[in-house]
C-alpha cells in the first residue's frame, strides 16, 4: 500500500484522513488539522519545536511518520487548556522569548510531570534538554516546570 486510511484521536476528537504512507505527522497536523502550534524547524528530530504527545509519549512530529498515530491519542498545544498548570506557569513566569519553542517545551514538561510529579532540578534539566530554545531562555523554562510541579501539574 502507498496510501492508507488513518484514524486517531486528536486533542480528544476522533479524526480520519486518507494519507500517503510517507506523510509526516507534523505536516499532517499543521496542514490538515490547522494545528500550527506544531512548529517546524530542524525537520530532523533534533530541536524539539515540533514535539507532540503520542499516547502521552513525547515525539518529534517532524520525524514521525503519520501512520504511527493509528489508533493513538495525539496531543498538540491546541489540546492543552489555558488553565493547565504547565501552560499557566510558562505564561505567568515569562518562560519564553520569541515563543517558537514554547509549545514543544510545554508538552515536554507535561510528559515529564506525568511520569515524575516532583522532579529535581537536575531531572528537569536532563529531560528538558531535548528541547532547544534559540533565545536561550532556559533558566525561566526550568523554573516554570518547577512551579508547575508545585502546582500539581501531574494531576
Amino acid at each position, binding site marked *: 500500500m502507498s496510501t492508507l486510511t488513518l484514524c486517531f484521536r486528536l486533542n480528544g476528537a476522533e479524526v480520519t484522513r486518507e494519507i500517503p504512507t*510517507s506523510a509526516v505527522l507534523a505536516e499532517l497536523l499543521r496542514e490538515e488539522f490547522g494545528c500550527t502550534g506544531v512548529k517546524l524547524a530542524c525537520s530532523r528530530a533534533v530541536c524539539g519545536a515540533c514535539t507532540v504527545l503520542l499516547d502521552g509519549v513525547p*515525539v518529534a512530529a*517532524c520525524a514521525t511518520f503519520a501512520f504511527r498515530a493509528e489508533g493513538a491519542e495525539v496531543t498538540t498545544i491546541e489540546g492543552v487548556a489555558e488553565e493547565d498548570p504547565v501552560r499557566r506557569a510558562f505564561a505567568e513566569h515569562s518562560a519564553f522569548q520569541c515563543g517558537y519553542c514554547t509549545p514543544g517545551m510545554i508538552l515536554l514538561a507535561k510528559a515529564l510531570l506525568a511520569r515524575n510529579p516532583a522532579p529535581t532540578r537536575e531531572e528537569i534539566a536532563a529531560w528538558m534538554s531535548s528541547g532547544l530554545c534559540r533565545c536561550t531562555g532556559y533558566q525561566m523554562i526550568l523554573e516554570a516546570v518547577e512551579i508547575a510541579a508545585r502546582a500539581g501539574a501531574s494531576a
Partner: protein
Amino acid sequence: MMRVAGGLVAASQYALPPFVLHRPTTVEEASRHVAAGAVALAGGTDLVAQIREGLAIREVADLSQVRGLAGVSLAGGTLRIGAGTTHAEGAADPALRAALPGLAEAWGRIATARVRFTGTIGGNLMAGRPRYEGRLLFGTLGALLRFADGTTLPAERLAGEASRHRLLTDILIAGPERLLFRYERALRPMMTLALCLRREADGRLSGRAGIATERLAPAFLPLPELRAPAAEAEAAAAAAFAALPRDFADPMSGNAWLRAAGHATLARALKAIAA
C-alpha cells in the same frame, strides 16, 4: 534538498516520496520483507531524518506490530536483549539492572526524552550512524548480534550497509555476571569511551576499551591483563592507546587530542571501576 559541507544537509520541509508500507505481525514475515529490500522501521525516530538526508527507499516494513522482538531475559548464562527493546525499557529492566548494572546505567543516558520511549536499541544499531552509541556499548561488551535468518555477527563488526537486508532480532551477551562495564560520555560529541573488563577464574581481569566520536565508528582497543586496575590504570591506558590507529580522527577531534583525552578518560574509568 541541498547537500552542504561536512556531510550536513540543509533541512527540507518538502513532502517525502511515497513508499510501499508493509505491516508484518511476525518475525518471519518481517524478515522476508527486509530480505526483499524493505527498510525496517522500528521505533521510527530516525528514518524520516535519513530520508531527508538522501536515503532512497521504496518499501518500509513497520515492525511496531511484530511480536517477540522486545524484552530482556537471562538464561543459560547469556543475557538476551530483544532488538525491539526501547531505550527506556532497557535502562529500567530489572533483569539487566541485576545482571549488568553498568550497561543499564549507560543505556539510561543515551538519547533524549523524545527518543527514549520509542527509539529501540535495534534501530540504534542498524541505523548505521556513528554518533548513535549502541555499537560502541555493545561492541565493547563483545556482544553478538543475532538476525532473523539465523546468522550472527559480533557487534563490533556491524556495518550498516552490509547488514541492511537482515532483520536484527536479539543482542546476546555471554557471562554478564563476570563483566564490569563503564561508559564515559562527558566529552560527547568530541569523544565517548566505553570500558569492559572480564573477571577470569583466577582473579585476572581482561578486557578492552572502545572509543568513538560524533563522526567516527568505534575503534576497539585491547587492554593488557590486569590484577589491580586502580594501580595499573595509567600503564594500561597508555598501552591501550598505543594501538589507536593514526588515522582515527575527525575534523572536530584530532588524533593527538583523542589519544590524550582517551588516555585520561580510560585511566579514570579504570580507577572508578576498581572502586
